[in-house]
């Protein structure tokens, strides 16, 4: 059995299910989704992406993630279903719960996979960027079960796969002790999240100074997009780490990725190269970013962004008036 694990129903759940369906078909395995959440809302949506079974572990304590209750519950469910492959999104949830599960079951775990495949014997081929994103490594877990992997959100395509006979199973949850105690929650400021944005305007040191980053926010708000950043920009504290795209930041896959003043270090490319359309703006005609771009503009990045703001802004005024 392939088990996909998440604490919410979101894009990453659908991406993982879509991919896992293909793996399950190839290896003739059953596919189950384990939802550990405080609500059953929208659970029907999961059925559209091909699970044979949806296992629900619903409890009000699953409102916010904490390791103790999630770990003890997941362990019980693992013991009951003995999955051969377990997949979870590489979010703060997956990247905390999965290592704890791997340690508990004395098995291997591969972090941040960007490609998955399965052979006839049911071995999961887990591929991830290695050595600072310079190469890809394929990793297997030959003798231990379950085989576990976290997967970068935004990497896999969402494919609908309707089944008529999806089975819903509700697990009983008991003794949810937690050594840690949640004191308060403060939501992060809204605005399109990088991971969900259709258009990302990403800025690099080519914008020359911190003040110039403002133009990227203007453009992003005009196009209902989000602002990303290169590592150099985050290191210089022009923007917070939340904006960082790349190996040590976020992997994004928007419809349009605009790399403004970013030269394109491999670490950055690793986080954005699967974007649908990549627009690179750089003064240096030989910047590596042009090698992965569809459209390249050789010019000052600040100037080009200002031009885009002007043209798109004008158009907004017209349609508004």
């Amino acid at each position, binding site marked *: 059995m392939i088990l996909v694990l998440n604490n919410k129903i979101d894009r990453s759940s659908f991406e993982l299910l879509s991919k896992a369906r293909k793996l399950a078909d190839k290896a003739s395995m059953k596919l189950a989704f384990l939802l550990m959440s405080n609500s059953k809302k929208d659970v029907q949506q999961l059925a559209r992406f091909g699970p044979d079974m949806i296992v629900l572990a619903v409890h009000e304590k699953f409102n916010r993630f904490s390791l103790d209750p999630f770990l003890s519950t997941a362990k019980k469910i693992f013991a009951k279903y003995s999955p051969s492959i377990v997949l979870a999104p590489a979010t703060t949830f997956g990247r905390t719960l999965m290592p704890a599960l791997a340690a508990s079951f004395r098995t291997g775990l591969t972090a941040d996979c960007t490609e998955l495949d399965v052979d006839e014997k049911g071995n999961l081929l887990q591929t991830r960027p290695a050595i600072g994103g310079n190469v890809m490594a394929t990793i297997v877990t030959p003798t231990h079960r379950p085989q576990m992997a976290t997967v970068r959100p935004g990497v896999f395509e969402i494919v609908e796969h309707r089944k008529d006979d999806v089975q819903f199973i509700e697990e009983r949850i008991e003794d949810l002790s937690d050594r840690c105690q949640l004191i308060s929650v403060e939501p992060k400021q809204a605005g399109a999240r990088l991971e969900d944005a259709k258009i990302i305007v990403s800025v690099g040191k080519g914008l020359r100074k911190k003040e110039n980053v403002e133009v990227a926010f203007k453009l992003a708000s005009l196009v209902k997009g989000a602002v990303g950043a290169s590592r150099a920009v985050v290191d210089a*504290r022009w923007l917070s780490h939340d904006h960082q795209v790349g190996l040590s930041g976020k992997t994004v896959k928007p419809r349009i990725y605009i790399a403004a003043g970013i030269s394109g270090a491999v670490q950055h490319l690793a986080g954005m190269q699967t974007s649908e359309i990549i627009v690179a703006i750089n003064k240096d005609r030989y910047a590596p970013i042009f090698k992965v771009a569809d459209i390249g503009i050789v010019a000052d990045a600040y100037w080009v962004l200002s031009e885009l703001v002007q043209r798109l802004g004008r158009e907004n005024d017209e349609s508004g008036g």
Partner: protein
Amino acid sequence: MVDELIRLLGVENVKFDPEELEKYSHDETSGVEAQIPLAVVFPTSTEQVSMILRWANERRVPIVPRGAGTGLSAGAVPTKDSIVVSLERMNRIVEFDEENMTITVEPGVITGEIQKIAEEHGLFYAGDPASSESSSIGGNVAENAGGVKVIKYGPTSFHVLGLEVVLPTGEIVTFGGKTLKNVTGYDLVRLFVGSEGTLGIVTKIILRLVPKSKCTAVLLVPFRDIEDALLCVPKVLSQSGVLPASIEFMDKASSEMASRFLNESIPNPEAECHLIFELESTSKQSLTREYIELGEKLMQMKALEVYIADSRTQRMKIWRFRKAIAEGIIAFRPTHCMEDVVVPTANMPKLVVSAYDIARRFDLEVLNFGHVGDGNVHVTFLKPDGMSDDVWKRSLEKALEELYKITVQLEGNLTGEHGVGLKRKKYLSMFLQEKELALMRSIKRLFDPNNILNPGKIFPD
């Protein structure tokens, strides 16, 4: 005229749209008026450069050569009705000769690119200015750029072995070659390096590479008293038996500017100034011995603390502060005047103390930072908030005059690494004798009889 250029070079190599010309009307020098050229041409070969100059010489059209436009003396700012020759498309690496440790490049190559290629082979291009990420090697040669490693390795001229040059008449000549020494006649290579694009246009450059040092440590040393800090520089140089690759200085106002730009605080922010030392060695053991010895000496010379960075992350943390000063000035205080005076190392304390005194007398703000190991300080006057432009201009003029007078008294010079250009030409006669200036004028006439190449630069009107 533009039509002729297009016929000569092809339409893709000529720009004449006023909007696009704007970028070529200035460099990074603050306070110098921009001047839109008639056109910008982008030659891609030596032959094209030759064609342009021959044409210009016949038509008596002023030509202004230009690299990446990062200059700090307005040397690439166009004269009226001139044609800018941008060398940015001549950016090929012609040859990397690992065995002879040389690299031959075209002038439009970004200096950092040369550094990268050298480092991939365990070598180092030592003429590494602070702007190496953005400046071009052609510009470095034209200005004889310095940087933070001059005390150990010397400025750009120390690393140029040979040149291919197009003279204002269009003739193509080569000077020097790949040999490290050469006294076959006058040293015309040295004459061209630092000639600010007034004698010819450099089209190929043979550079010397050196082995890259294995281990590096950077020391950040705060002092309570600026004079204490500056006094210990000549002592370290003459008595410690170690030649640091860099000794840099930043006063409190400079490090505050850097901190604001980086949004990060410097260790011991209360200190009146910080010195930065970079040491290079062949092994970790010898490096450790050297930085401990140097560190102890500095503590005896009234350092408040000695911070030692020997990992890349830590080293970068220190250098980030030093390099952010200029960026901070440009970002937060665009109306400023960055100077480049240079004095014998031991006279540094007097120069810096005078700079504060001058600023006080003329109600200007000032920050001092720079390459104290070689006596080169970037005294930077800032326009105080609320001061009118007129008052600023008048006060600045007086302040500069005072600064230069003291520099002369201290046996110093007008500019160490940024060049004369337009910005400083009226002060040249304070520093050069009449005969010296006359000889320079004769040399200029000899190479450029019709005065078409970068006219109006260096020489006082």
